[in-house]
């Protein structure tokens, strides 16, 4: 069975049609899926419907065999621990240290009191430390996050997601605020995570080239509809025009490059 399955998911904000329009697809364990589309297409909405940060108006979403819309508040929290999320603006607590921010990923597993007091077990701390080390942040571990560069902050975001022991990681434009170097490091990490740990990665992207280079599969969204769903090598210039509409003229895409990577 697929790890994640969406059936006819529709979302209307304020009764206006339609941020998402009848979206259906399924994703397997360990897949690296990129979602591309112009801004306002509904990419963020789609991602947030998966962990119910946004409630879908209709349709069914099942994660790891559980139908998420039917879950109680408590069960939903439990489900969310299985889904990591990283953000364009990193969404860290800037005044706290790297290690504290990373350990926030464990809060979903904790009782109210332990979480409020910030009591973490030695195993949790050790795991967090190993993840931080692999991501190359061990010198920053006790630094406050407002002293980090953008790329380092995003690595903290990845570490926070990994420490959850997730099955899926959702990434909402993770490299949109980063320079090319930092972007490459982040995308490499995400690629490695999916390959080596078998974690499913679903990533919203603005840059088609990046999507072509890293993904196993690309989903193109326009005006809330899925207009393309397939392997990167099947994506043609015509389809890119379908996805991006009139914006496609502004995109400089070299489709030849994908075979190099």
């Amino acid at each position, binding site marked *: 069975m697929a790890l994640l399955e969406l059936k006819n998911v529709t979302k209307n904000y304020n009764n206006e049609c339609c941020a998402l329009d009848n979206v259906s697809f399924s994703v397997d364990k360990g897949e690296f899926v990129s979602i591309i589309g112009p801004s306002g297409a509904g990419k963020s909405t789609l991602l947030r419907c998966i962990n119910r940060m946004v409630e879908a108006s209709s349709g069914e979403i099942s994660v790891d065999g559980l139908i998420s819309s039917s879950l109680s508040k408590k069960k939903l929290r439990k489900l969310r621990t299985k889904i990591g999320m990283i953000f364009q603006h990193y969404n860290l607590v800037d*005044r*706290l*240290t790297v*290690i*504290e921010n990373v*350990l926030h990923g464990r809060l979903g597993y904790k009782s109210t009191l332990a979480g409020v007091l*910030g009591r*973490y077990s*030695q*195993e949790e*701390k*050790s*795991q967090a*430390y*190993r*993840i931080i*080390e*692999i991501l*190359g942040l061990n010198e920053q571990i*006790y630094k*406050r996050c407002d002293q980090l560069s953008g790329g380092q902050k995003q690595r903290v975001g990845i570490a926070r997601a*990994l420490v959850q022991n997730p099955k899926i990681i959702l990434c909402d434009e993770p490299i949109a605020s980063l320079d090319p170097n930092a972007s490459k490091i982040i995308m*490499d990490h995400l690629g*490695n*995570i999916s390959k*080596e*740990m078998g974690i499913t990665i679903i990533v919203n992207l603005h840059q088609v080239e990046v999507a072509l280079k890293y993904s196993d599969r690309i989903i193109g969204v326009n005006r809330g509809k899925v207009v393309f769903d397939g392997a990167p090598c099947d994506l043609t210039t015509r389809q890119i025009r379908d996805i991006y509409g009139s914006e496609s003229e502004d995109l400089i895409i070299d489709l030849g490059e994908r075979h190099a990577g």
Partner: protein
Amino acid sequence: MQFKELIVQETNNICEQLSSYEDRHTSFKELFLTKDTINFGPIKLLDRASIAMRTVILFLTVLTIYFFSTLDYQSIDVLKGFTDTFVNFKTMFLNPYAQRFTLGEAFYNVVVTLGLAFLTTLIGGIVALLLGLLAAQNLAPKQVTNLIKGFVAIIRAVPTILWVLIFAVAAGLGSAAAIIGMSFHSISYLTKAYSESFEDLDRSVIEALMASGANWWQIVFQAVIPSSVTYLLSWTFLRFEINFANAVAMGAAAGAGGIGFDLFMAGGFYFDLREVGFITYLIIAIAIALEVFSTNIKGKLQKSI
């Protein structure tokens, strides 16, 4: 020869670093392999900032406990005081009624209070504009800014009521003493606020104008004031709200007239809670209207500039 060696060495170094980075990099698998725990200290960072915050909180808590422990509970019945207060508030807010003045008189007195607040704000704003320019670090020499900032801090440290009472000795109790006395605080407050707005202005703008040969007054009127006018106005409106509250208080405590005096008579002389309630409602209504008004103006100004 040496130079060539240097380059070779440097290249080797870079290669080494790159390969070691790659090595560390591709090892998420390790997460499954090692399960041994690393010994870990506390994760909280105790830097200067958090130590300072904890000290402040501890200090305030201790002083608060000390205040309550040394309070003289003998001379009053605390419990009765609270129940009385509750009953009084109920009378005040549920049965407001005015009998010693008509609605028209009440409104007239509100306008008097608003007038006091307006004049105070106006005087404060005009004087503070000048002092604010002289107190801004990017516009005046350091000695001058320090002098004015210090002067203004001392003025602010004297409570408004004391300024008014001190001026009342020279001018007699009444609106003159109240307006001049209250203006002192407005000047001080607005000077601080204005000068901070001026200091937010980008240094490069001033430098560019100086380079083009503009003199101080030209810089002030062409660059500094136009670019901070939104902030100046919103601080001034905020001060007007504060001055309204002050004018009420000075009416009550320093004979400045207006609705504050009525409030004082109702509460402190006739002990008429229902009238206190009526006047309080009136003041709350005006205060909230001012607040809404100034928020709206702020929004409009921010859009138009």
